[in-house]
């Protein structure tokens, strides 16, 4: 049988060594009434047949080419350097566990330490953790931090935070008895003001003002940010936010129908002890050699149990590794180039779309980064029409926001070459 190692002879000799007659002697503790006759699943297949079956499922999906994908909404197609998969597909990385034995896990630990530094640098905050599941749970974990830090029972969500993040935030808050309020004005009960920059529609918010209003109310400011945009946009640390969180999918991860991706979180020094999840720090051996080790474990579930800052155990380490390779490959200039190309192409496209009959920017006065909302006639038909021409078109905002009926958001990145923009615009000609 595939992936099994023991031969029948091995089994017999092992049973003999143990001193029992049959497997049943080892399963005596299981009440007889519970014993199954057989597992009701099809019999196993050869690798060849397994792969054929899975390939036929994959073939029932339609994959749009990167360059003709203009849909974002939290997951984006970007150029992923070949270096990323070359690193993450190394079995020494992907088949290791959480680095409990530091001496035999320096590779993973140093990589995480570098990830933490990269995220801290990108967000211009003091310390970042080893990763979280995704952007949505990162927002929720940040809210928990604020709740513990301030002792307050309410978080204010300002503006168009990704609707799925809001849902997850609600689920987390419900458990802890925290109220989630939409609005802009924090009050004396407010633990944190949470905003997204750029927001779900792609528009820039006044992060500085939001941060100041939070602080004025004694609340924390939690910025949910697009990591690529931070090469160009002011990072949370520069406008005084206390916690930065976000989704790292754009940093070298494929869309993969929504996961696995990676959440990140960073904060000011003062909040470090509230951070959820793993943290890696430097440590030295008796010979004075520098190594890396899990740190501040007293925040965590395996030490603190019900008093832990979070229940997270397995996080998204390999995705964080992918993000590290991506950021290291890009460097400050590469990231700026990627951000810049995305910005320019989005603005060029916005201009051309706004010239289509009946089309207009939904919020003409609001600046945007590389995703933008258009108000268009017959929005659903637009998407269908584009699909017919092989283009994964914009996202309909109506799905989440009744007030945004007729609004579509488009995204541009470095994978949408100028010819692809032409093809999109041509396909939309009446």
């Amino acid at each position, binding site marked *: 049988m595939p992936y099994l190692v023991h031969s029948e002879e091995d089994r017999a*000799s*092992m049973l003999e060594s143990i001193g029992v007659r049959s*497997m049943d002697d080892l399963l005596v503790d299981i009440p007889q009434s519970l014993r199954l006759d057989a*597992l009701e699943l099809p*019999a196993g297949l050869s690798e060849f047949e397994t792969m054929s079956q899975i390939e036929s499922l994959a073939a029932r999906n339609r994959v749009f080419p990167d360059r003709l994908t203009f849909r974002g909404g939290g997951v984006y*197609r970007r150029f992923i350097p070949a270096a990323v998969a070359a690193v993450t597909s190394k079995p020494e990385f*992907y088949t290791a566990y959480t680095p409990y034995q530091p001496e035999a896990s320096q590779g993973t630990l140093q990589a995480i330490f570098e990830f933490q530094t990269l995220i801290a640098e990108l967000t211009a905050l003091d310390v970042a953790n080893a990763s979280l599941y995704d952007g949505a749970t990162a927002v929720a974990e940040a809210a928990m931090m604020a709740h513990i830090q301030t002792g307050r029972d309410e978080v204010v969500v300002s503006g168009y935070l990704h609707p799925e993040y809001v849902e997850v935030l609600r689920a987390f808050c419900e458990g802890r008895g925290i109220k989630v309020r939409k609005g802009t004005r924090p009050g004396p009960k407010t633990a944190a003001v949470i905003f997204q920059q750029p927001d779900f529609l792609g528009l820039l918010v006044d992060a500085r003002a939001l941060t100041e209003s939070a602080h004025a109310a004694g609340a924390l400011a939690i910025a949910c940010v697009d990591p690529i945009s931070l090469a160009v946009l002011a990072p949370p640390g520069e406008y005084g936010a206390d916690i930065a969180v976000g989704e790292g999918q754009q940093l070298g991860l494929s869309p993969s129908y929504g996961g696995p991706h990676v959440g990140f979180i960073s904060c000011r020094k003062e909040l470090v002890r509230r951070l959820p999840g793993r943290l890696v720090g430097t440590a030295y051996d008796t010979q004075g050699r520098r190594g890396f080790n899990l740190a501040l474990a007293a925040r965590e579930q395996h030490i603190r149990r019900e008093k832990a800052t979070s229940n997270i155990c*397995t996080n998204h380490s390999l995705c964080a590794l992918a993000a590290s390779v991506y950021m290291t490959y890009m460097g400050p200039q590469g990231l700026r180039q990627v951000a810049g190309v995305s910005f*320019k192409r989005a603005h060029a496209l916005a201009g051309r779309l706004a010239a289509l009959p009946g089309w207009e920017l939904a919020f003409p006065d609001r600046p945007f980064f590389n995703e933008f909302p258009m108000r268009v006639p017959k929005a659903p038909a637009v998407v269908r029409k584009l699909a017919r021409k092989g283009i994964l078109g914009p996202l309909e905002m109506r799905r989440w926001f009744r007030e945004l009926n007729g609004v579509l958001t488009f995204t541009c990145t470095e994978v949408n070459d100028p010819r692809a923009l032409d093809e999109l615009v041509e396909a939309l000609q009446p």
Partner: protein
Amino acid sequence: MTELLSFEKSRRSASAPRLPDAGVTAPEASQVLAPDQLRVQAPGLPQLSEPEIMRHYSRLASMNYSISEQFYPLGSCTMKYNPVVNELAAALPGFAGLHPYQEEDTVQGALELMWRLEQALCAVVGVDRVTLQPAAGAHGEWTALRMISAYHHSRGDNRTEVLVPDSAHGTNPASAALSGFHVVEVKSGPDGRISLADLESKLSPRVAALMLTNPNTLGLFERQILDIAEMVHATGAMLYYDGANLNAFMGICRPGDMGFDAVHMNLHKTFTTPHGGGGPGAGPVGVKADLVPFLPTPTVERTNGHLTLDFKRPKSIGRVRSFYGNFGMLVRAYSYIVAMGGDGLTQASRDAVLSANYLRKQVEDDLDMPHEGPCMHEFVASTQNLAHEGVRALDVAKALLDRDFYAPTIYFPLVVPEAIMVEPTETESKATLDAFAAAIKDIVAQARTNPQDLHDAPKKLPVGRLDEVAAARRINAYLQGQSEDPVLRWKPPGK
């Protein structure tokens, strides 16, 4: 072998990677945006060439022990072989290239895979439905407790406590707390099983659920599980199954049949999705009919072969993460299940139990065995027999590293002092188990003759034992403003 940090190798003048130009006429961000929207100081990412980057990560990789090269008997973690074909399956463009907001008619294959995986998991654990959304075991625990909470609420029943055995994994109490419950600990008896008397005494109408691992973290099957289930259900509470140890009995018995109402599974343990040095995993949760209305949205539904995502579930606890779960891991787990089949999964569990008992037998004269066997898929030993020589579980673990084995889980579960928790899994050969047992014997012999050598282990690795106390002190100093070294990240010297 050592390796500098990428930051330490960075050179400011290193050339940037080649990337496409915009190729359109449009203004720069700096021309459009207000100055205070713009970044002032460039992020301090390293600047390195591609050859340097690849060398860097290759060298880091070679500093890891991993199941690809080492026996990794980390108890409770089920470090079994990760089939390579699973990686190919997940990387197929027809999966990896899917945008989560594609229209349903363009993702029928993905939804079908999720639906089939749900069916398979239902069959394995004996439940009615499964949500694939949770990203890991802990996330699944919390998701299940949210559902249990919603269930009680829907009946106007305001229950505030969750019972957790003292041998439970730390995520159990943490998840219960995060879900708003008060955690009450239930004691283990001398046979390593939950004490029914203590359980009895803690059960009350305030109790929303008992969280149980079975086999428990000592590797022992809770023989009285049917009685426990009856007691728990009798008080109106629910029974939650921590599926970390599911590898012990696939095809042999099922949590659903034992009376569990909700069950999480760790696809990154039982179902061979790689652990990735700490994730990503996947922690699907299966539930019995009573809890089905509360499942997170969306669920995957299948009618006449057509698949849809159902977002309209009025009693749902909502979303527990974005999109539909760690889809890439779901593909891998599905690929494993298809290849193994019902027969293969059953044999896998049988072999896992066989290997654990075999290895236990090989070392039973060398280490303390605090509980009687047979064990299930793992066993917990103790190094208390070496206490006299001043040798601790930690020393044994480090000595194993020098002998080219990863170490078992140590100091867990908390109920066994100097615990060594060994889980061999079904994918390690008898020869490997024998070699491991020989290493244990060798270490125990060394404990008797030269314990200092064990305290000095490991010696063959890139670093020796790291001083955690000093590290904690350095972090404190930083957090209290007494030091510039952040410890938890790199900073350019003198910054």
